[in-house]
């Protein structure tokens, strides 16, 4: 038994417990009606649809969720949450599962999607804002998709749509402190 454990804050053991601790949602409310999946725009492309994710959380199968890219393909559009008759909020459960899975296995997400998020967050850490040019270059380097959309850049530029110089937050140190504070919080939590 861990030293932290007490009656009020038991150390979460199962995946459902961890999701509950992170979100305050109770995945056990799901009765597998499938309404969430019927409305999910990504269901046509994923092996695990939102109701499958809910079931695997309740069956404590992080392995199944980890071995599949489905959870990383959620768009966060919240259609599932709007359709669910039980307020299960599959989108938020999926968010929490991603965070739990990524903590255990940082390379779990598909490379292209990981590359995009990493490049995006890099931009914010560097400038406090998003330089789209920097985002695209960063994404290409990290994803290996070096020539994707290369033809689009001239069209974007002639329309005045790609800012070359990243817009910058003056007190960018303040933004970096927020990143550090959140990372430190993650380690404590």
């Amino acid at each position, binding site marked *: 038994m861990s030293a932290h454990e007490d009656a009020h804050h038991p150390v979460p053991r199962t995946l459902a417990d961890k999701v509950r601790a*992170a979100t*305050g949602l109770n995945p056990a409310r799901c009765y597998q009606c499938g309404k969430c999946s019927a409305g999910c*725009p*990504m269901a*046509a*492309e994923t092996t695990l649809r939102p109701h499958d994710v809910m079931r695997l959380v309740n069956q404590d199968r992080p392995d199944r969720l980890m071995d599949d890219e489905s959870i*990383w*393909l959620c*768009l*966060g*559009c*919240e*259609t599932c*949450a*709007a359709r669910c008759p039980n307020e299960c*909020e599959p*989108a938020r459960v999926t*968010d*929490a599962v991603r*965070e739990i899975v*990524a903590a255990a296995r940082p390379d779990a997400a598909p490379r*292209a*999607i990981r*590359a*995009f*998020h990493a490049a*995006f*967050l890099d*931009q*914010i850490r560097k400038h*406090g*804002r*998003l330089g*789209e040019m920097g985002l*695209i270059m960063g*994404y290409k380097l990290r*994803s290996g998709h070096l020539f*994707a*959309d290369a033809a*689009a850049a001239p*069209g*974007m530029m002639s*329309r*005045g*749509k*790609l*800012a070359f110089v990243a*817009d910058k*937050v*003056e*007190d960018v140190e*303040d*933004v970096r*402190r*927020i*990143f550090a*504070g*959140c990372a430190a*919080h*993650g380690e404590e939590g």
Partner: protein
Amino acid sequence: MKVAYFPGCSMHGTSREYGESLHAVAEPLGVELDEVRDWNCCGASSAHASSRMLAVALPARSLALAEAQGHEQLLAPCAACYNRLAGARHEIAEDAELAGHVKRILARPFENRVAVLNAVEVLRDLGETIKAKATSPLKGLKVACYYGCLLVRPAAVTRFDDPEDPSSMEAVVKACGAEPVAWRMRLECCGGGFSLSRKPSVVRLGRAILEDARKAGADAIAVACPMCHSNLDFRQKAMARDGEDKPPMPIVFITQVVGLALGIAPEKLGMQRHFVSTKRVTSRGNGEATAPAAEVG
């Protein structure tokens, strides 16, 4: 009305025309936009996909800055920023423990007092002013109002309209003298977040939206989200099926629709910056006859 203004990153880049058209209509409608000094990126879907704390703390910094500037309302025209800012405000209000952590991480005064507004609700509430000032009402223009996902969901966060059957954007379009069409896809997701990383998904989702709007007889799709806009506008070529020969569908920001009705020149609204020609729409604003569909694009 004076509000704090959160431009968001895409207003200076891919969606310049959204910012330009917002500023162009703000003045005649009596809205003063006071930019949040030193605002930072809301983190969008990337912070959201990585850490809940970061997804809340990044928008909270800008909310705290707006508060320090003395504001009670903040306008975030980008639907994605709006969703993240309103979502953070909601989560902090609902969860005292989270609020404590966020305050500690921000290390600045923060009472979570600023309400977050989107452009559609602000324009809806100005409907009467728009009607009164519409010198070039867009008679006969059929508009498919596209909400997408970020404006209306989650219901607990957005609240300004009925999440299942919203009507704000249609009200704005009507105030402009144009005609909203009834269609099915207005609340579906366009896949925006995957624009760079998963193009086939974006093409599949966007194509369904374009086809439905066409079936409903729309001349244009109105949006309030830079990501929806660049997906449906910039990616529209990729969405056409092989050998398909349909007139392209102009994708316009709701602020551009209002600007045209107010008689503002299309160039001031950035309408020349689109990938898909907006002629079908701009020709209405100036009271000219519309070109037949076959001649467009």
